[in-house]
């Protein structure tokens, strides 16, 4: 069972954060097929957010085909993302480490590297959405 | 709602019950002995008027200054105090406490309408108030029976006790029930008007006390048309004689033999029916009391008395209780109107 957390200052709406955290957990293999997601009551009891927010997030995940709701029982993972992308993880990680080495040799500070990554990431992700 | 009413009223109810029980014990113990003493005094079976009067008078004299008088005064004081205390401590805080503590916002948002809330509270506490006063009066009345019986037989010069007179009327019979209801309703009303406990209590006390003082003087004497009676002035009953130095002005006061009656006015009048104002007799100016009294006797004065006879005691009791109950009802209706119309906060 995973636990959600919310970053109130990230500028990302709570329901999107929940979705992202589920996808992240799926990718990392923390959630596998058949696992139950925390009940709406448990989530709001911990995070003190509106239940509709959680319902919205779970509905969208269901729409994407990642989870399925069993009435009276709960919401369960129907598909994982792990197998698809986990294999690519290793190669991508090595590439990333090589790039980081390059950036450091070019003289960039940690904060500059982080800023460069984030802005490029955001700009690129916006294009693909 | 009954449970909540009881739970919030618990302390006051226990205090009242404790007081009643204590009073009951004191009155029972004392009353039994008083009753025995009365039975032994021979007043019950006596026939001859003169000796009856003497026996009764003697009996009453032994009571004066004794422990029985203490018990009597305590009982009278308590019955006087109880309706006012009920108004102060049961009536006024009923609503003001909820408003001051803000708990009305809890009490009036349960599944009970305010009208029902008030009905149960007023009903339970109002009935408790009337019961407390009624029981006290009942117990004290039982205790004092020998005293009243003796007073009925004793003459005008004895230390007779008179239930019809203002001093004791309000603590006898059923009148305390009416007062208790009225005191409670008055406290409740001031609570609704003023909405703060201490000022409401102060107002209740002031108005209630004022009414208790003014009522017997201004209103009760006129509830039934007083009787008039003219009796010859018996010099044996002369209680006072006032003269001015010049001797041209004299007023004679004398008691009349009307056991148990409430004397409203008592004037010495002359043969023509005018109030006797003098002049003072020679004997009264110069001589001793005996001669003075004798000289007054020769004036053949009479007493003009307006009074309420003893036989009207219960009539007055019913009237008084009915009036105060009606006032209590009117005040309570007003409080209901105010509370249900939400013009409180």
């Amino acid at each position, binding site marked *: 069972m995973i636990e959600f957390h919310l970053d109130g200052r990230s500028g990302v709406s709570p329901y999107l954060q929940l979705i992202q955290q589920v996808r992240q957990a799926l990718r990392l293999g923390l959630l596998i097929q058949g696992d139950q997601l925390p009940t709406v009551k448990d989530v709001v009891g911990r995070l*003190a957010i509106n*239940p509709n927010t959680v319902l919205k997030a779970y509905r969208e995940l269901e729409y994407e085909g990642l989870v399925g709701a069993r009435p009276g029982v709960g919401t369960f993972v129907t598909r994982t993302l792990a197998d698809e992308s986990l294999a690519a993880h290793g190669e991508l990680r090595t590439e990333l480490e090589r790039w980081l080495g390059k950036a450091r040799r070019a003289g960039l500070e940690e904060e500059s590297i982080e800023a460069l990554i984030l802005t490029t990431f955001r700009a690129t992700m916006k294009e693909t959405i | *709602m009954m449970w909540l009413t009881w739970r919030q009223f618990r302390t006051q109810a226990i205090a009242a019950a404790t007081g009643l029980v204590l009073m009951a014990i004191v009155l029972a113990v004392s009353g039994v002995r008083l009753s025995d003493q009365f039975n032994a005094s021979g007043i019950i079976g006596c026939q001859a008027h003169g000796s009856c009067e003497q026996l009764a008078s003697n009996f009453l004299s032994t009571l004066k200054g004794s422990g029985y008088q203490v018990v009597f005064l305590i009982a009278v004081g308590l019955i006087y105090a109880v309706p006012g205390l009920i108004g102060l401590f049961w009536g006024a805080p009923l609503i003001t406490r909820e408003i001051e*503590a803000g708990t009305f*916002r809890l009490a009036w948002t349960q599944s009970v*309408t305010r009208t029902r809330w008030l009905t149960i509270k007023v009903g339970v506490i109002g009935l408790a108030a009337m019961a407390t006063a009624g029981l006290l009066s009942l117990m004290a009345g039982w205790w004092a029976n020998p005293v009243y019986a003796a007073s009925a037989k004793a003459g005008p010069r004895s230390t007779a006790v008179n239930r019809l007179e203002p001093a004791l009327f309000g603590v006898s019979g059923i009148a305390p029930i009416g007062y208790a209801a009225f005191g409670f309703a008055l406290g409740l009303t001031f609570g609704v008007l003023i909405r703060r406990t201490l000022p409401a209590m102060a107002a209740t006390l002031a108005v209630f006390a004022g009414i208790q003082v003014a009522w017997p003087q201004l209103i009760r004497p006129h509830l039934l048309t007083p009787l008039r009676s003219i009796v010859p002035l018996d010099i044996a009953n002369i209680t006072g004689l006032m003269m001015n130095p010049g001797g041209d002005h004299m007023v004679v006061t004398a008691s009349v033999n009307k056991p148990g009656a409430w004397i409203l006015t008592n004037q010495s009048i002359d043969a023509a029916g005018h109030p006797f104002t003098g002049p003072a007799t020679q004997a009264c100016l110069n001589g001793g009391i005996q001669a003075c009294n004798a000289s007054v006797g020769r004036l053949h004065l009479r007493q003009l008395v307006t009074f309420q006879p003893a036989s009207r005691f219960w009539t007055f009791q019913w009237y008084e209780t009915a009036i105060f109950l009606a006032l209590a009802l009117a005040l309570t209706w007003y409080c209901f109107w105010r509370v249900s119309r939400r013009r409180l906060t």
Partner: protein
Amino acid sequence: MTVVLESRALSKRYGRRRGLTDCTLSVPAGRVAGLVGPNGAGKTTLLHLAVGLLEPTSGTIDVLGARPAASPEQLARIGFVAQDTPTYAGLTVADHLKLGARMNPGWDVGLARSRIGAIGLDPRQRAGKLSGGQRAQLALTLAIAKRPEFLLLDEPVSSLDPLARREFLQGLMEAVAEQGLSVLISSHLVADLERVCDYLIVLIDSRVQLSGDVDDLLASHRLLTGPLCDMAALPPRWQVVSASHTDRQSTLLIRTADPVHDPAWTVEQISMEDLVLAYMSKAANTPARDRTLEVQR
């Protein structure tokens, strides 16, 4: 879609003082509605009118389709937690639960007991000896265990420390999730409500300035930054909530249904808190008004 609270031109005056002026609202069911505004804006007045503790001076208000406190049945369908969570200081926790049980036909004994147990209250303790957070939880339990359809709360967390505040809101949200409650909760701290509310009512100086679904409101408001502009030249369909200018730059908060195509403007979303603040300062800047604003993060 049913409406839990409906008011039309609702006004309440206390003598010469205005409590509420001309409020027209329609709060849908199934929402957690937040009522925000500065102190003295009229939030408590509105809530008291909604639960029948006050009568309107003019206008109407209907809660769950009926006049507030019109009958025991209507009272049973609402729950109310008043400001400073009043409880009977001399009564114990258990007494309060008994009060709830005896005065509410719909009382859920099991729910009450489990909540008290979860909060960790000693049933024998007098309510006057409880901490502020515990009293608030007791008051919330009383309101929730009567199984209402519509729960109204008047600044229940304003005087609580952050932990007590969080625990209160957790408990409240759990109850909403479990029972499908509609909620109307007032606060002068917007941050509290941002997490829990999906409907917003902004009340300033006895008037409703803004009301609607949070999603709709956030979607229809836009924060624009761009070069110094001429206010008169703006598109007429733009409702300007606030505007500030430097010698080079203009920053506008507008409300509009249309997308902004002009490339001169940088368009940003606004957070709920900033939205409320903008409306509050708009009201504050209206001349001849004197009020206290409480803005806290």
